[in-house]
């Protein structure tokens, strides 16, 4: 099997290498990919949409349909993970582990036992033993707000600098994942619950499709943001840039929530009680 696979792959690589001789050279400004529609985008993006970042202009305006369905794809990926793995188990039927912080002694409390009150002397821990990591927790607590501010900046400033909904959403999701890794899954879920992530997943797609429908209601084509001009009180070209911002916020919400909910479900094996 190994030899057969190797032969097939070498054959495939040989064909690709043979085809490469017809490809344009590296950095060739007259390559076919750069000749047709991309030249139009570069020359007219600003006059059409008043967005200097051409990548964002193409992503959310010229190819708006494409991006809307990409958002729907990651939304359905989150739903697929949920349907595959999510198991609902009653919370009270498992034994709990608590650590006395000062001495490091671990208590195991069977179902029905008296639970310690919420205080600074005891903390609940996962069943796989974890060390008490004050430095990691403190460092992450300092970092996370700045990461989130940066994520929001990347979403909101995606027109004028590198960025946009996808990148900003991933940064925001990463900040919450950092919290989940540095603390534990339980305290993350108590701050950002499963219902909230599910709501944000669907709300992002709704914002995107809703912006498109709003344009339709105002008498233009689906996702033709120029129609928003009468609603926002600006000229149609600037209205396109505002429409792109609305769409990017929707994308950012969906991407963040999908990253977080994928992590929740995969790390805890679908039980959402304790994870990595």
């Amino acid at each position, binding site marked *: *099997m190994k030899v057969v*696979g*190797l032969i097939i*792959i*070498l054959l*495939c*690589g040989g064909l*690709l*290498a043979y085809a*490469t*001789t017809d*490809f344009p*050279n*590296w*950095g*060739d*400004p007259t*390559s076919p*990919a*750069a000749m047709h*529609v*991309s*030249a139009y*985008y*570069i*020359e007219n*993006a*600003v*006059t059409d949409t*008043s967005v*200097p*970042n*051409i*990548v964002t202009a*193409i*992503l959310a305006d010229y*190819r708006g349909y494409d*991006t809307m369905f*990409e958002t729907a*794809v*990651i939304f359905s*990926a*989150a739903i*697929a*993970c949920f349907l*595959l*793995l999510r198991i609902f188990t009653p919370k009270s039927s498992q034994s709990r582990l608590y650590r006395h912080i000062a001495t490091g002694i671990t208590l195991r409390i069977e179902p029905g036992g008296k639970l310690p009150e919420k205080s600074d002397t005891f903390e609940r821990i996962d069943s796989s033993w974890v060390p008490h990591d004050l430095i990691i927790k403190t460092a992450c607590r300092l970092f996370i707000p700045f990461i989130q501010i940066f994520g929001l900046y990347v979403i909101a400033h995606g027109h*004028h*600098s*590198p960025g*946009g909904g*996808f990148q900003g959403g*991933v940064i925001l999701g990463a900040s919450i994942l950092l919290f989940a890794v540095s603390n534990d899954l339980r305290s993350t879920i108590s701050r950002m619950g499963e219902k909230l992530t599910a709501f944000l997943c669907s709300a992002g797609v709704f914002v995107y499709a809703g912006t498109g429908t709003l344009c339709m209601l105002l008498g233009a084509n689906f996702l033709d943001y120029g129609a928003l001009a009468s609603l926002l009180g600006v000229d149609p070209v600037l209205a396109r840039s505002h429409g792109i911002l609305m769409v990017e916020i929707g994308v950012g919400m969906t*991407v963040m929530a*999908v*990253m977080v909910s*994928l992590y929740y*479900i*995969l790390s805890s094996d*679908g039980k959402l009680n304790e994870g990595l």
Partner: protein
Amino acid sequence: MHDLILTIISKYNYWIYIVLLMIGLYAMMVKKNLVKKIIGMNILQTAIILFYISIGAKKDGTLPILLHTHHTGHHLVRAADYINPLPHVLMLTAIVVSVATLGVALALAIKVYHQHGTLDEDEIHARIRK
């Protein structure tokens, strides 16, 4: 001989993507462990992403973000000065979708592990045939 070396050097981006694509395909076809197959799929996606990004490059081209466009009025923008933004847009969404497919693939792998207690392809086949 000189031409051959020139071809190899002027198209070096394609050789990188071909090698990565072959590594990914090999992992997907030959490796027995399902997680290794998933990682192979990810390497293959990375190869395609690099291929598209390298197609967009232009010599002496800069980032496709224009400067000072709001107030200085309309000045001519030459397409040759900016790298091709279209592959970047396509790959931007492809990266996120590849993460989503990775999530679904890992969820399926976890499900398979629950069902059969192993991620090895041969053992799963043996258990199914039993």
